[in-house]
């Protein structure tokens, strides 16, 4: 019985030992699992912390500003008055007044008197004889003509003296035509005298071309011919009737004939005379152009712009000594081989102007780095332009790009890589930049971008976070 008790006691001790061993292992295993859980928690915390990183690209600079002075300046129109400072004077041309003529009416009397009215002012006064002043329409100067016929037949005359007068008249108006600055009246005339075979004497013909306005303003021209035998005279009466335009319409044209007979004698005393008018024309002259002087100058400047320039502004500073000079700034378009206006301005006398105008797109106006700008100046009066500045302000793409990066989180961030990528370019830049919370840093990259391209800009931090942004390398359109 006692030995069974001993064996039981020994077994109990072993049993306790085995159970204690198992328990210690269990506790150890639990401790290990807890350690692992703590490790997982630690990694998760680190991951969350890393996710809080935030970098923002707040700017990038890939251009540099450059002022380009002209490599050559010429004055294709006008002349240089001085070189320093550059001053230009124009060429002036005088343009005369321009008028256009328009007939109010032209009568050639081929179909009759055509609205002309005959008035006998004073007839001859001889008695017991035929002395008459008659109206005439028939064969004349150029086909048919109107006129006055003098017929004197005196059976016996020792010396006959007399006077007579008659006229043809016609009214006209300009029918509210504006800008009439002159009125010209023309009339062809012809005077013929024929004495009887046994007659002699002197006949004085006075032909008048008269224009009259309704309120009495009169202009006239006169021609006088003295005949002592069978004679003939012809010509043209030209009257500047502009003065009557100041008067009221309707106006009247008068063809007046005065005949004076001196010492007509003969047995019988016979005289036949004819005063004819033809091609009576009333012509108005309208002013088309007042006539002025044109002063023009052109200044051309050529520049050597950088080949990687993306934009350009022409800057022109100067002063005119005259107002009202219209200036146009042109740039030579190499794609079309024409000069194109890029801006224009009007001068104010003695006041300096400062014109800044874009020359865009720059590719269109440059070839092999050459850019041509011309200033064309127009005025009605002579002027002088004094230039202070004649330059092109260029923005060019540099061989470096500066990227400004802001840390937008509450942790310190270490930037380790910057990538610049597009469909044909990939490059990594090794950087080591620690950026404090809220601070910004500028990273300079040795990279020459192409104009008109866009790139992916990728930032990589030491915690493995990646931030993407895009940059556009502009070319101004």
């Amino acid at each position, binding site marked *: 019985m006692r*030995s069974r008790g*001993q064996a039981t006691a020994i077994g109990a001790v072993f049993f306790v*030992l085995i159970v204690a061993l198992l328990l210690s292992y269990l506790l150890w295993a639990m401790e290990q699992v807890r350690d692992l859980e703590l490790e997982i928690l630690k990694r998760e915390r680190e991951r969350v912390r890393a996710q809080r990183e935030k970098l923002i690209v707040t700017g990038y600079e890939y251009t540099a500003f450059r002022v380009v002075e002209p490599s050559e300046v010429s004055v294709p129109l006008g002349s240089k008055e001085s070189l320093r400072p550059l001053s230009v004077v124009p060429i002036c041309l005088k343009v005369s007044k321009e008028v256009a003529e328009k007939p109010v009416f032209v009568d050639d009397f081929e179909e009759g008197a055509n609205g002309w009215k005959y008035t006998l002012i004073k007839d001859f006064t001889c008695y017991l004889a035929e002395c008459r002043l008659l109206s005439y329409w028939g064969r004349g100067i150029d086909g048919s003509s109107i006129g006055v016929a003098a017929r004197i037949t005196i059976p016996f005359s020792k010396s006959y003296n007399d006077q007579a007068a008659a006229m043809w008249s016609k009214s006209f108006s300009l029918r509210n035509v504006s800008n009439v600055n002159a009125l010209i009246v023309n009339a062809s005339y012809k005077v013929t005298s024929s004495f009887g075979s046994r007659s002699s004497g002197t006949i004085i013909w006075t032909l008048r071309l008269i224009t009259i306005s309704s309120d009495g303003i009169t202009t006239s021209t006169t021609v006088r011919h003295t005949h002592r035998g069978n004679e003939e005279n012809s010509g043209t009466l030209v009257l500047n009737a502009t003065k009557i335009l100041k008067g009221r319409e309707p106006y009247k044209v008068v063809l007046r004939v005065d005949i004076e007979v001196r010492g007509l004698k003969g047995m019988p005393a016979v005289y036949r005379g004819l005063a004819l008018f033809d091609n009576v024309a009333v012509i108005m002259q309208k002013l088309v152009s007042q006539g002025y002087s044109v002063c023009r100058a052109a200044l051309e400047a050529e520049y050597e712009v950088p080949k990687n320039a993306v934009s350009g502004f022409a800057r022109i500073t100067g002063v005119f000594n005259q107002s009202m000079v219209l200036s146009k700034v042109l740039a030579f378009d190499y794609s079309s081989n024409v000069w194109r206006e890029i801006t224009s301005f009007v001068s104010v006398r003695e006041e300096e102007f400062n014109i800044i105008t874009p020359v865009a797109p720059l590719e269109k106006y440059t070839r092999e780095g050459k850019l041509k700008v011309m200033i064309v100046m127009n005025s009605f009066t002579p002027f002088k332009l004094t230039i202070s500045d004649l330059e092109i302000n260029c923005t060019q793409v540099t061989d470096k790009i500066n990227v400004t990066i802001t840390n937008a989180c509450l942790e310190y961030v270490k930037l380790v890589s910057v990538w610049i990528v597009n469909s044909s370019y990939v490059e990594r830049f090794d950087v080591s930049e620690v950026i404090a919370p809220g601070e910004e840093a500028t990273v300079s990259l040795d990279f020459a971008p192409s104009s008109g391209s866009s790139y992916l800009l990728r930032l990589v931090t030491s915690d493995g976070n990646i931030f993407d942004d895009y940059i556009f390398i502009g070319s101004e359109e």
Partner: protein
Amino acid sequence: MSAGVSPVIAALLLVVIVVTAFAGVYLWVLQQLETYRFLLKRDIFESKMALAESGVVEFAWISDSRLYVYLRNVGEVNFCVLDVFFNGSLIANDVEFCLPPGEGDLLVLPLGAGAKYGRVKIVTGRFNEIEVEVARIEE
């Protein structure tokens, strides 16, 4: 006398048998526990190592029939690439490409001509995986 000795012998035998049996059981349990302890310790260590391993593909692209992958080790242990898959196909195995913590480098692998776009999966020595998209860049 024999009736007096027999009980003693019987008691001693019983004690010996009990001690022997329990000692055997004890030793067997002890050995088993040591084995489990070792395995658990190893598994936990590996798990911790796997947690400490972390890598990132900064950028990957295809050019000239090659796959370029720039990797950075952002973990606390060495980062080793084991296998690389392209569009699900294994293109490299047992790649001896390891990065110490904080370092980055370019992994270049040959790729079939004509590949323009795809997904790359990188399996690490601790069986972590990274997947990225790649596209061709005509430099």
